């Protein structure tokens, strides 16, 4: 006899207890501390901050711990917290040209004013597992020999001086705020860049990659990639000037792409732009490729690849939205499924009747018990 399942509440509470237990893992091991995550899994922390649109390394580390290392879950936790925060002020536009550089490279010139600075990068590491880390070998401290770097001019500004690259203009208009306003397609570039900045890194990586393989090729050169510390300033009404309220780590990628130009305008390089919190270099490269691909319509290029279709790209970039909607398939759908079953059985019954030519009335709205009982195990 069927007994209606009760006790959903208890089941949920039990699931939460089990989850907490699994997260903690073996009690023989010391519990992972948030500052260890913040200090030693910093690239994970940076990714979570970027995709959650909240700069708070400590809380991002907490989210990673609470999510057992599930990055999308961690992004979601931080995003949900972000929503509850009051908006105290709006910062002045950040000046990445004044960045305190930690890493800065250009793929377009061999030597550049301020120099190529490799900084902390995995780029030239040989991907050999370091068994010393397994044996808990300590890493020697870096000998700090050189003085801190002076601010470096942005490479694209040098090109701009010669008129070789399109100029980015601030038309003074109020940018959209994607955290408060629903997207109104087609969205402008400000909204687009915001959506890409919080977009899923893997998704942008795949889309950016697709443009390199010919689905909307845009001939990119990594004009400059820089990462370091940038000051955040807020205009204080009472003092009549902007004051620095702190520094944040940023990664920026300025891509140089093939010419635009028209009968009126001389040919110029075009740009793609990527920006992310922390050390998120791969994300900014992918973002710059996709930003440039999405400018296809504006630049009069044929739209041939998925990465160039703005509504498609932007509507599916947010991994918190995507993850929620995909995982909602786990929720009960008894009622909808029952509706489909009822129709499918009816269609099969009518199909069978037609095949046998028994003249059974087609379109009968009711199902019979016999056919229902026969349906599921019936291979026919």
């Amino acid at each position, binding site marked *: 006899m*069927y007994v*209606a*399942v*009760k*006790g*959903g*509440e208890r*089941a*949920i509470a039990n699931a939460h207890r089990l989850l907490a237990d699994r997260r903690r893992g073996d009690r023989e091991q010391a519990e992972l501390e948030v500052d260890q995550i913040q200090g030693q899994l910093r690239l994970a922390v940076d990714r979570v901050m970027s995709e959650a649109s909240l700069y708070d390394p400590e809380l991002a580390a907490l989210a990673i711990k609470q999510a057992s290392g599930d990055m999308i879950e961690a992004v*979601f936790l931080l*995003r*949900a917290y*972000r*929503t*509850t925060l*009051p908006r105290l002020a709006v910062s002045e536009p950040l000046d990445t040209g004044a960045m305190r550089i930690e890493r800065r490279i250009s793929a377009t010139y061999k030597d550049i004013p301020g120099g190529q600075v490799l900084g902390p990068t995995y780029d030239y590491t040989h991907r050999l597992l370091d068994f010393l880390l397994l044996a808990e070998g300590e890493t020697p401290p870096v000998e700090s020999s050189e003085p801190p770097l002076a601010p470096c001019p942005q490479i694209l500004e040098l090109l701009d001086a010669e008129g070789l690259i399109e100029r980015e203009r601030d038309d003074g208009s109020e940018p959209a705020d994607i955290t*408060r*306003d*629903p*997207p*109104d*397609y*087609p969205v402008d570039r400000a909204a687009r860049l915001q959506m890409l900045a919080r977009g899923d890194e893997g998704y942008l990586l795949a889309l950016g990659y697709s443009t390199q393989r010919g689905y909307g090729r845009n001939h990119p050169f990594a004009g400059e990639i820089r990462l370091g510390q940038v000051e955040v300033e807020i205009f204080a009404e009472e003092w009549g000037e902007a004051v620095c309220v702190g520094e944040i780590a940023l990664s920026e990628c300025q891509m140089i792409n093939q010419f635009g130009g028209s009968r009126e305008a001389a040919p110029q390089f075009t740009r793609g732009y990527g920006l992310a919190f922390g050390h998120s270099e791969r994300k900014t490269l992918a973002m710059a490729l996709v930003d440039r691909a999405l400018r296809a319509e504006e630049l009069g290029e044929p739209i041939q690849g998925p990465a160039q279709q703005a*509504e*498609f790209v932007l*509507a599916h970039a947010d991994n*918190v*939205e995507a*993850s*929620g*909607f*995909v*995982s*909602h398939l786990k*929720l*009960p*759908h*008894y*009622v*909808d499924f*029952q*509706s*489909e*079953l*009822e*129709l499918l059985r*009816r*269609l099969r019954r*009518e199909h069978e009747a037609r095949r046998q030519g028994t003249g059974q009335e*087609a*379109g009968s*709205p*009711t*199902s*019979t*018990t016999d056919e*229902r*009982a026969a349906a*599921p*195990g019936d291979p026919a």
Partner: protein
Amino acid sequence: MNGYNFAYLDEQTKRMIRRALLKAVAIPGYQVPFGGREMPMPYGWGTGGMQLTASILGADDVLKVIDQGADDTTNAVSIRAFFERVAGVETTTVTPAASVIQTRHRIPETPLEPGQILVFQVPIPEPLRFIEPSEQETRLMHALEEYGVMHVKLYEDIARHGHIATTYAYPVKVDGRYVMDPSPIPKFDNPKLDMSPALLLFGAGREKRLYAIPPHTRVESLDFEDHPFEIQRWEQRCALCASDKSFLDEVITDDAGGRMFVCSDTDYCLTRRGELS
């Protein structure tokens, strides 16, 4: 709950949603864009319905939450517990005792009453979405009242299957103007939308749209003269309460093809069994 506003959302967000709700009831069936916020639950799990509920709920409301018609499914339990926690409101499973009912995929069997508000959780608010994926295009189709493609789609079903193959989220036309997705309720529930005495609100959090059907509004399910709209029927009665008027869930009872049919609306079924015993 400490640190959070009444019903979780801040007052400015509630006002934004409230203004959008007034537009929604003024333009029945039209999807009003709104600045949907992240909720502490996943998108696709009822965040739109929850934002609407949070924006209308008051301390003296009595809230009922159902999923698949049932009060005891896990997501219903979870959402009900959320509002108990953040708003401290009284909750109930009894349909007539509720002033606000949040639902996923069903309209209760017990007829709703004037003054009640039914809040639907909506996954994809755009009824034309599976015919035309672009938002820019569907917006234009609504503006021009260009709904021919929807009839073509339904008619292709008839040509292929002999029936309209849409069994849930069956499109309706509201007050003779907007074609609307009633959310994935079974088409069995569609007739309850027409001239409902209760206010019907629809919230899609991920898609950031909300819409409404005021009480006593004409709601027609799309159909054809030679293929009139019809709802699901069962030969069986509910195995628990013997109702022959409710939407039945099929329950598999063993691995030898054994099955039974029971009401999807648990409150309706339990109430009837109370009356019967």
